[in-house]
């Protein structure tokens, strides 16, 4: 029995569960009782794998980054999720969930989005399947991420502004949950990360686990072993990290490094480093580490990267942090931005700013020359060009 997989009741150690209002119970229960058997159906797997190969463009390469390896005197491999259709790993999950939604007979899809990547990935698969799509997005994020709003609209989705609270990702998630309460029978909620009530964290992790499955087989070809010494991934809610860690969770010889956004610095008051600043609490139906006031009000995190400023972290990651199975490192805006620029210049790859946080670890932690270090290159930086331009003044 794995120590790190979800328990039958939906817990990872003391984290997880389904702390949901009764109004959501029938929907979540339907999903909980059916997701494993539906995913296990051969016809599901066939459709899922076909779309991942022919539509998303998998397997994505595991690229040996020669110049980075030389500079940091270790063996750096990049898992190229940035080459997925729509530009990030997010689509691995939306493909899986949309097939599931169809098989449950749902006709209306809702999603939340922060920076817009998950919204675009959801709008994309809804277009592919011909299903109605409504994406909730904080009013503040709609202004900050205009190109992704336009993409979602082009793909046929309706983008609804979340105007409550801080008008960002957590509020968009609240609004999506409320929509689900208001539409209990025909609607499927595609959550974008390993957060929310059980079974979402496990389901999303399973759909993203294709990343670590491929790393294993590709590394065997490159290095003659399935096991890297380290896997590094950035963590907001934690879906790309969950996918990159998944196959290695029980293999203790593989070091797992989760990289959080320190924003202006962990102690600056403007940060999203949940593992350091969070306390156990409940957000969006899950018991996990959560940034909150002493009184239990959820606080608004900060990061230059819109994909990392979630006040919680998936319950799997809370458990990995709590048990010490993964090392949590936080990286400031400044270090992430400089890393993003360095990777662009040294490897010809402009990473998403979220991903740039993971690269910054190369500068913070000493690796051995023989170490095999896999960095999950979760997304490309096209969506962040404006932020890069403003930051560096290109």
């Amino acid at each position: 029995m794995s120590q790190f997989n979800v328990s039958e009741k939906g817990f990872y150690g003391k984290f997880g569960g389904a702390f949901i209002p009764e109004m959501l119970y029938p929907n979540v229960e339907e999903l909980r009782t059916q997701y494993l058997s539906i995913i296990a159906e051969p016809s599901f797997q066939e459709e899922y794998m076909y779309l991942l190969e022919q539509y998303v463009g998998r397997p994505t390469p595991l690229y040996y980054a020669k110049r980075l390896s030389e500079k940091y005197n270790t063996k750096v491999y990049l898992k190229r999720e940035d080459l997925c259709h729509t530009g990030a790993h997010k689509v691995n999950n939306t493909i899986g969930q949309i097939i599931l939604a169809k098989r449950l007979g749902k006709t209306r899809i809702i999603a939340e989005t922060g920076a817009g990547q998950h919204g675009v990935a959801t709008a994309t698969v809804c277009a592919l399947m011909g299903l109605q799509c409504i994406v909730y997005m904080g009013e503040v994020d709609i202004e900050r991420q205009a190109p992704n709003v336009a993409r979602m609209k082009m793909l046929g989705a309706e983008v609804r502004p979340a105007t409550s609270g801080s008008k960002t990702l957590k509020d968009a998630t609240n609004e999506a949950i409320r929509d689900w309460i208001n539409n209990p029978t025909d609607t499927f909620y595609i959550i974008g990360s390993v957060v929310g009530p059980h079974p979402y964290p496990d389901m999303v992790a399973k759909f993203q686990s294709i990343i670590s499955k491929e790393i294993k087989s590709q590394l065997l070809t490159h290095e003659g072993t399935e096991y890297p010494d380290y896997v590094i991934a950035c963590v907001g809610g934690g879906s790309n990290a969950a996918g990159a860690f998944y196959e290695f969770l029980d293999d203790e010889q593989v070091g797992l490094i989760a990289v959080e956004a320190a924003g202006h610095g962990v102690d600056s008051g403007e940060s999203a480093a949940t593992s350091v600043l969070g306390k156990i609490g409940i957000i969006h139906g899950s018991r996990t580490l959560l940034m909150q006031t002493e009184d239990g009000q959820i606080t608004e995190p900060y990061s230059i990267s819109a994909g990392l400023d979630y006040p919680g972290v998936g319950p799997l990651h809370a458990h990995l942090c709590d048990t010490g199975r993964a090392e949590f490192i936080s990286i400031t805006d400044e270090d992430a931005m400089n890393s993003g620029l360095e990777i662009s210049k040294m490897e010809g790859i402009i990473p998403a700013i979220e991903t740039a946080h993971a690269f910054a670890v190369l500068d913070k932690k000493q690796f051995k020359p023989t170490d095999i270090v896999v960095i999950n290159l979760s997304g490309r930086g096209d969506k962040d060009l404006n932020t890069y331009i403003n930051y560096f003044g290109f």
Partner: protein
Amino acid sequence: MNRINQKLQENKKLLSIYFTAGYPNLNDTIPTIEALEKSGVDMIEIGLPFSDPLADGPTIQESSTQAIENGMTTKLLFEQLKEVRNSVQIPLIIMGYFNPMMQFGVENFCQKCQEVGIDGLIIPDLPLEEYLSEYQAIFEKYNLKNVFLITPQTSNERIMEIDAVSDSFIYMVSTAAVTGGQAGFGTEQTAYFERIASLNLKNPQIIGFGISDKETFTQATLHQKGAIIGSAFIKYITQNSIAKIGEFVEKIRA
């Protein structure tokens, strides 16, 4: 006997009012409770404000945000309620989300509730299973009735389970919606009200969500023991003032 159970034995349809503690002004909590009792309301739900109230619509969320900005906290609420039992006899229930209670410490929270004279709790995001395995003993130790919700989508099997565990009333959510949603009940709702009534549950039911005036109150209490007004009351005190609470209640009861 717990004040809620005593009230439920009265031969009348019960009117319960929800309001957000510390709203519109920080120190309105006690005057609001006193005015509600004086105006003939049967039960009061005191809303413990939370930043992210998933089951609530914009009216209650905005009142919660305002209350938090006013400085309302769990600790302060208990201070405000310290002497409430010197002035009112009405059953008092705290309705709130689980995270602030967890941060206060669940046992500590329950103990404080008993000290100030709270009779029950409604916690929408504390599911039945978690309550039974972790918290039932604590709630009972401090003589707090935990009130569960059911909705039109709740299966009969689960309703029976909830009925078996409950020992006061069942909170019937009128419709598939967050609070403050709709105007008037249609045939779908009345059929649901009748269906639940016909189950002959051991706990009486009180309907909430979508009750805003005399008409919806009357419809909701045709088959059930009582009804709860929340968002409509919050809107009323926002537009008028807590000094005019009596007029609001009179119109419902007229």
